[in-house]
């Protein structure tokens, strides 16, 4: 595999990471959506790169799908949802960790991701070798977002980031599993988004805010 491809992969991976950081580092909900959209576009690019490297045409299809669903459909749905929600502030007011802290933590998490994937025997396969840590990092960053944020919407975004990581991961390792499963996974994700947006509606109607602080009645202390 010639160095050019390697460089492209390296760079695309790096860009993807940065895009993910973007999701962490923003505050307003719209900013996240944009960050997410951006990240999805990058992801589509990465997908294309993988397709180009491995030379499997289905992956281009996957890339197109990603572009359509992730960077257009889902953001549309979510913006629609947020429009519907009659709420004054859609910005994350007080996350558990301050921005700075969360940036540092996420840096640590990325390091962890690389640390974990180091032991695995992927040297033979540069695609995996490069993208695996990136995707793992995305899981962790997504999780961080989920743990850190207080509004339901931002948690949805965190979920989406994880899901992106999942997609990249699957792609990198499998170069496209059998089609049923791909479809199944996509379908699941879409339904999940739909359901969560229904829940968001319900929430805003019942608690007239999306603060998960309202969701603390069920507890044992």
């Amino acid at each position: 595999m010639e160095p050019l491809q390697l460089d492209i992969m390296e760079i695309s991976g790096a860009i993807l990471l940065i895009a993910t950081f973007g999701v962490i580092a923003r505050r307003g909900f719209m900013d996240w959506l944009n960050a997410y959209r951006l990240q999805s576009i990058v992801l589509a690019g990465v997908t294309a790169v993988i397709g180009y490297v491995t030379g499997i045409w289905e992956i281009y299809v996957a890339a197109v799908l990603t572009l359509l669903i992730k960077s257009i459909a889902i953001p549309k749905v979510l913006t629609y949802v947020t429009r519907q929600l009659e709420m004054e502030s859609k910005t994350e007011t007080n996350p558990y960790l301050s921005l700075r802290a969360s940036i540092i933590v996420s840096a640590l998490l990325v390091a962890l991701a690389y640390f974990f994937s180091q032991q695995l025997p992927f040297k033979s396969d540069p695609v995996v070798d490069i993208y695996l840590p990136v995707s793992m990092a995305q899981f962790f960053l997504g999780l961080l977002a989920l743990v850190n944020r207080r509004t339901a919407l931002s948690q949805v975004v965190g979920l989406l980031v994880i899901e992106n990581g999942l997609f990249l991961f699957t792609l990198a390792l499998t170069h496209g599993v059998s089609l049923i499963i791909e479809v199944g996974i996509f379908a699941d994700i879409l339904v999940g988004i739909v359901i969560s947006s229904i829940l968001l509606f319900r929430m805003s109607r019942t608690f007239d805010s999306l603060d998960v602080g309202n969701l603390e009645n069920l507890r044992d202390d």
Partner: protein
Amino acid sequence: MIDDLVLFQVVISSFLGGSILSLVSRNCGFARYVIYLPSMVGSVLAVFFSLHVMTGSPLSWTVPDVVPFFNLEILVDGVSAFFILVIGTVSFAISLYSIGYSKEYQDTKRISAFGFLFNIFIASMILVVSSNNGFFFLMFWELMSLTSFFLVIYNHEKEENIRSGMTYLVMTHLGTAFILASFLLGYIQTGSLSFDSLRASSQSFPFLVKSLMFVFAFLGFGTKAGIVPFHTWLPKAHPSAPSNVSALMSAVMIKMGIYGLVRTVFDLAGPGASPDYAWWGVLLIVAGSASALIGILYAVVERDIKRTLAYSSIENIGIILIGLGLSIVFASYHLVSLSAMALVASMLHTVNHSFFKGLLFMGAGSVVYSTHTRDMEKLGGLVKMMPWTTLLFLVGAVSISGLPPFNGFVSEWLVLQALISSSQIPSAILQISIAFASLPLALTIGLAAAAFVRLFAMTFLSKARGKLAPGIGEVPRTMIAGMAVLASACILFGLVPSLGISLSTTAFHLQYQPSSPFDAVALQNASGKNFAALSMPVVATIMACISLASFGFIRAMGGKTARTPSGTWDCGFGNLNERMEYTAASLSQPIRAVFKPLFKAHNESDKEFHLQTNPYLVRSMRFSSSTRNIFEESLYNPVVSSTLLVLDKIRKIQTGKVNSYLLYIMVTIILLLLFVRMSHA
């Protein structure tokens, strides 16, 4: 020649039939008979069966593949038969008694459920002693606990009953956990839970494993038997239960603990005949002495009739354990005949205790039946209203106080002889420590008499100290009959002790066999001379002759004299009334004062004076005195509360914040990944 197996199945099925019948008898008029007649039949058959097995050959029966890995194995050898005999006799009497006793319950609530549980309870006890496989043993064991628990909380309208029931259930379950551990230790040695395989190979177990098995068994079975300090459930559960149930529990069920101990010690984890195992016996002796003394001390100051009896059960279990422990110690020093004697002593006391304790609990039940109170301070003077109950209760009281010529005396006599024989143990330290261990036992025997004088006198004699409901009368005939059965058993085993002795010797295949039932129980000392001898029949005859002779003599000397009734001497003050009598509390006050630290007795009195200035003219004076249970206060409560504290900390992790939940997941995955990374690198 009848088949043992068939007989066994008939016994069990008659109890099951009784339970089903009582379910279908929707509390109809003759429901009581439907419930208790089957159990009576079953009990009689059980007695017959056990005697048949004892004289004949053991019954063993295996049903394979009922559940995976375990077969239902039944083995009724002499020991099981011995205990089945006890169960049968007592439960016969109690069933007879219950026909009358359940009447008041039938008027107020359904007794069909009660009958169901009652029958299952007895059946489960028979199955416990006859099961030969660890799994099924535990199964029937827990079945026994479960049914007895439901019987204890049968009057569940009272909060307190439920609470004491829960205490009982939890403690007995804890005990079961220990028994389980003991069995499983054997299981990992042999790979099977069948007692046969344990028997076969237990001699080759490592010493440590055996000792652990023993200790766990001691803890487990000890809890059921009510050994101090695992006894706290007993004085709670017995009073809460209906009296026929408490009779059954105290007379028979706690003996299941003894059975388990005997089984484990002499059969499953058989100790080798080497001084290494002496400490098993010492442990039992120490625990026994503690139980005996502490049990009776609490009995002396208790004011609830049934709780007094419960505490005295703890005491008697202690005596039984002392005998058992001595037998182990002797065995470990190859003193075979002494060990046999000690074992006989403790087994005889087991039988005797189940007789008189059943009798006493039934008597207490009759008192409650007609007076509806268990409080001695309110009772009194029943001797005139319930003569039969009084007489039978007196028999029980005298027997349990270990007075000749009743059965309690014989077994305690044997235990004491065994203690004295400890001088033959070739180990100075053991000799002297066991000799000193006889101190608490002697004290216990003395206090027991005191406790039962108090119980009997306060309940039946002189005048009622409180307001009793009018129209108190004698209890129904069936109840009297039930008590009479056990009373006569007490007298019989007292007059002809060799009955009980030969019973236990045949059950345990021991050497000693009296040639005629009227032989003296004779013990030889080391130099072959007569160490001690006791021939109750002759003693009884002597007493009879003397009473005749002396009656005649006195009559001859004094001639006929009149007996004129008159008021009790009141020092001339007049109107002596019941409020001037000694109460139960004041009666035991000296003893309570002597053993102050144990009771943490707490007295409070407040006086009102006619003139505040003058402390001599007292208008009124209230005095109340309460004893506290140091075990509850300084052993159980701290443990429980600290546990709860920990639990409270743990459950706090359910914070209700989805963020924290996700954090847990994140941390878990990262930790596990690190774990892999480290273990791999």
